[in-house]
């Protein structure tokens, strides 16, 4: 089993761990962290793809990862601002039972 495949397997595992964390946890900070674990899994997958072409890594997936990182940082920042507001509003960092 060669190295890129190893990384791809680890990436899949990270994606699944993040997905499980997102579903299981109720605390919103943990959910945001879980999404970040998922995105790390996806980015690792792209890096593994870049490495599979041989000696020189393929630059295109790496460029995509950079774009993805920027998106991920902005999304995390927005999510953190929102959960601070939720805490002010509801006094806890969870979804209220009925927000419809």
């Amino acid at each position, binding site marked *: 089993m060669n190295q890129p495949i190893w990384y791809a397997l680890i990436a899949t595992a990270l994606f699944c761990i993040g997905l499980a964390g997102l579903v299981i946890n109720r605390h919103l900070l943990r959910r945001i962290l879980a999404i970040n674990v998922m995105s790390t899994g*996806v980015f690792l997958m792209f890096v593994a793809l870049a490495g599979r072409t041989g000696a020189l890594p393929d630059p295109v997936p790496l460029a995509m990862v950079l774009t993805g990182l920027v998106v991920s940082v902005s999304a995390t920042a927005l999510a953190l601002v929102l959960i601070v507001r939720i805490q002010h509003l509801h006094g806890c960092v969870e979804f209220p039972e009925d927000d419809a």
Partner: protein
Amino acid sequence: MSQMAALVLMPLFGAFIAFVLPRYARITGITVAFIQLGLALSLATTIYAGETLRLSAAGWDPPLGIGLYADGLTALFLCLTSVVGLGTSLHAIGYFKFDRNDSNHNTSAHGWWPLWLALWAALNALFLTEDAFNLYVTLELIGLAAVALVALEAHAVAAATRYLLVGLLGSMFYLLGVGLLYALHGTVDMKALSAGMQPEPAAWMAMALMTAGLLLKTALFPLHFWLPPAHANAPAPVSAILSALVVKAAFYALLRLWLGPFEPLAADLAGQLIGILGAAAIIWGSVQAFMAPRLKLVVAYSTVAQIGYLFLWFPLAGSSIAGSIAWYGVVWLALSHGLAKAGLFLAAGNILHASGHDRVTDLAGVGQHLPITLFAVGIACASIMGLPPSGGFVGKWLLLNAAFVSGQWWWAVVMLLGGIMAAAYSFRVLLHAFRNKESQLPQHRPHPVMEWSALALAVCAVLLGILSAQPLALLEVGASVGELALTEAPK
């Protein structure tokens, strides 16, 4: 050609000005909205002449650079965006002016214009993009701007957070699928992908991941749970944009992918499965809309139901004649739902604004005090029910036709049932609203522009049915399905 770049750059520039110079935000927003309508119409005229347009950003050709592409489908969605965008921008003049006098809502008017213009730029970029990775970037831009817009309403912050988490989850699935496609083909350009797609396990995996991510963003039953709170609690112009445009953007991405790269992969079983979910969405969304206590919640659940109709395209797309009829039908339904739902949400916002609440059972007196708004509700509901001669009628009629031509009559049953249920929840609202009440005048009279913009969008939904010849011809340009050939009665 240059319209394509301007359609993306103009609102982005406007967003920048609106953010840096809040004093000029409103005039910037309205100017951009009018220019956008002009640009979209001029692009549509160019394409109507029969050619599709391609532009490589900064002169770098795909696969290295970013390709922009416009055909009839792109032009129609750009026109939808600019018409809904102009109507909503005009409505926002009145809506956020009222908010500014209210100390609780001081910040929302400042946030609205820059965020909305940024969202507009992202929507146009999504419609014009020709590259699966760029779709991801534009979907994320749309998602982030939309979440921030929902959060303008202080009590909607939990709904906005849920919306954000769901959107990010959908994007992760989508992006993982893009990674697989790149691993298989070494490109993310959709044209190149369509040419080289082979039915193989990894390709099916990519299709499943990307479709699942987009279904989550389109809020197809049972992944719709995030939509009603977000759409019902956002400020009225934001609800209108979310239901009319943002959900359609994810659906547009699905259409592009399933007609392009995934076409050779599309198995009958997958189409049927998505169709069943669509049918369940129609039934479940309509039942919930009928039982919802608040008007905006009724409208939001009605969006869940109407989105179900769009997914009935997937089981019908398989056969050639029915597939092309269904394609025209589904695009028509998406366009007319966008116009009607935007009008309906704006009108619901006016009612909420005037009476301070939107409980369906306490709507008595709306007909007396807000006749124009109620007229808008009635016309928009007629298009959503699919009454002739509205755009919703044309779309549903084409889809029904496709269901009979392909011999899958059971989808027709669901469509008719959905139409009856749409009539039920619409008339429940109208019945209460038409009752007279010996009451005082409403607390705040909505600004006339708020009432007329809602009515104008609702009327556009009906005009889409009356004047459907040219837009249908526009849709044929660059379409991968055959031209619209309606057959005789089914055998």
